[in-house]
């Protein structure tokens, strides 16, 4: 395969990565958001694989492998055992902003990411100047934006994980290889985050009867009326 074809394929994968990041901001169904995150992780692994082929780097194959094992396989299992199933069936009807507005702001953030990555790209060797850096930064910003507009616990968690995915997408592209140890460490970290958030979500669900944690304003909740916070 030629380098140009590989570059284009990588560009395509990163383009789809950007789309999933937009979807995480805008999609209503909790399960849909989580599935989008899994697709995003698979795309991240694909990008690592293509870049590994392109630069002949075993480290990147390792990154792809770790990603494929941890995010689409272990994470859903971990969430399934910690978070009650009914949380997934929720739809988020009251985001902080309506969906077209948040999509437009997300678009502005993505364009901003392209602008701020231009000076960054000048610092790395020409062969590494792919689309990964701007799209990775865009993924980071969109994940942060998702955390600010979302109110349900699981989409908030997905926002944090999407930020991590974005950081990785830029990280794998600016040098010949990310040390495997770093990737393993961060991936384990991610698992711990998911585990803790999952347990917290479960506790929130049991104590206050809702997982719309973005709407919790007081430190100490009064005893909730039946069905409060439900849709």
């Amino acid at each position, binding site marked *: 395969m030629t380098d140009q074809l590989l570059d284009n394929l990588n560009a395509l994968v990163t383009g789809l990565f950007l789309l999933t990041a937009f979807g995480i901001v805008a999609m209503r169904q909790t399960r849909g958001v989580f599935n989008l995150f899994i697709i995003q992780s698979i795309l991240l692994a694909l990008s690592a694989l293509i870049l590994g082929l392109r630069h002949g780097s075993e480290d990147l194959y390792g990154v792809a492998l770790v990603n494929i094992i941890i995010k689409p396989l272990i994470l859903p299992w971990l969430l399934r055992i910690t978070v009650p199933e009914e949380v997934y069936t929720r739809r988020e009807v009251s985001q902080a902003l309506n969906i077209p507005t948040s999509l*437009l702001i997300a678009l502005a953030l993505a364009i901003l990411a392209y602008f701020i990555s231009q000076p960054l790209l000048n610092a790395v060797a020409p062969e590494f100047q792919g689309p990964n850096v701007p799209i990775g930064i865009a993924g980071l910003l969109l994940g942060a934006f998702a955390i600010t507009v979302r109110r349900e616990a699981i989409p908030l968690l997905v926002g944090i994980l999407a930020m991590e995915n974005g950081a990785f997408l830029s990280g794998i592209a600016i040098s010949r290889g990310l040390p495997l140890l770093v990737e393993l460490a961060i991936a384990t970290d991610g698992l711990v985050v998911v585990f803790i958030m999952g347990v917290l979500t479960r506790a929130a669900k049991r104590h206050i009867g809702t997982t719309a944690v973005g709407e919790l304003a007081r430190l100490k909740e009064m005893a909730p009326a039946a069905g409060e916070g439900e849709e």
Partner: protein
Amino acid sequence: MADKIVLNLAQVLFVIAFSPLAAGVLARLKEVVQSRRGPGIFQPYRDLWKLFHKDEIVSEESSWIFRFAPYLIFIIPVYVTLLIPVLTSFPLFFAFMGDMIGGGFALALGGFFATLAAIDAANPYGPMGASRTRMVGFLAEPVFMIVFFTVSFVAGSTIPYIVQQQWINPVANFFMPAHVLLLLAFLMLILAEGGRLPVDNPSGHFELAMIDESKSLEYSGRGLALVKWGGHMKLFVLMCIYLNVLVAPWGLAGEQSFGAVLLAIPQVLLKIFVFLLVLVIIESSLAKLRLFRISEFLGAAFVICVAAMVSQIFPL
């Protein structure tokens, strides 16, 4: 020269003749998927034949616009057909008369007159549907524009015959992110503009929920036949633009001979059949969006095509 004019007219005849067939095949495929028994694939021809032989009733209160609009709705897709590659991958006689933006505006003109005609007859449902169509149209317009601007960024031209060569020259270009994102955005646009399912239900006959259909409520006889045929042709032309200009010019006649063009006809029909299969899958698996969710649907299309443009503007 004379050959090119003849081929250009043959292209128009192809669209006029096969667009009802595409509509019939689409309806038939939907019936198969939903395990219903319905009319065969030639039903749209029979409908048109029947309508042309019926009397036409025109309200006394309506103006010339009402009588004029069906002819315009019929002729606009024919005009756009002159500009786009339907059967050949080399430019024909009228190819440089207008570009993709011109074609887009011509289609918008047809929509404009259909709206006026719907308001003209003062049927209460007509203006309601017309204003809804305008809403969809206004939301679709920026997507149209940005798709064309991105295409002209890539190809350095907005003439469809030049654009189509860009995606396979070299083949790696086919996988450019801009290309794939554009395909996605334009597919959503076809669904919105063609009045297909997530936006509008083409087979619904409930006046309050109609978007596209309600514009032809007042027409009968020959006028209705022309409006229907124009609608079939509009969808067919949009599919041709999508498949031949934006996806890839595979299967088109490469050399200027009648044999090659004849050979291209089944190949283009096959491409359209594959596209209809995709359309049926989309239509059978999605529910109709509520009216005010349409802005979210087209907002998503807008975001996708701006992402395509951004990935093209910044040289990396």
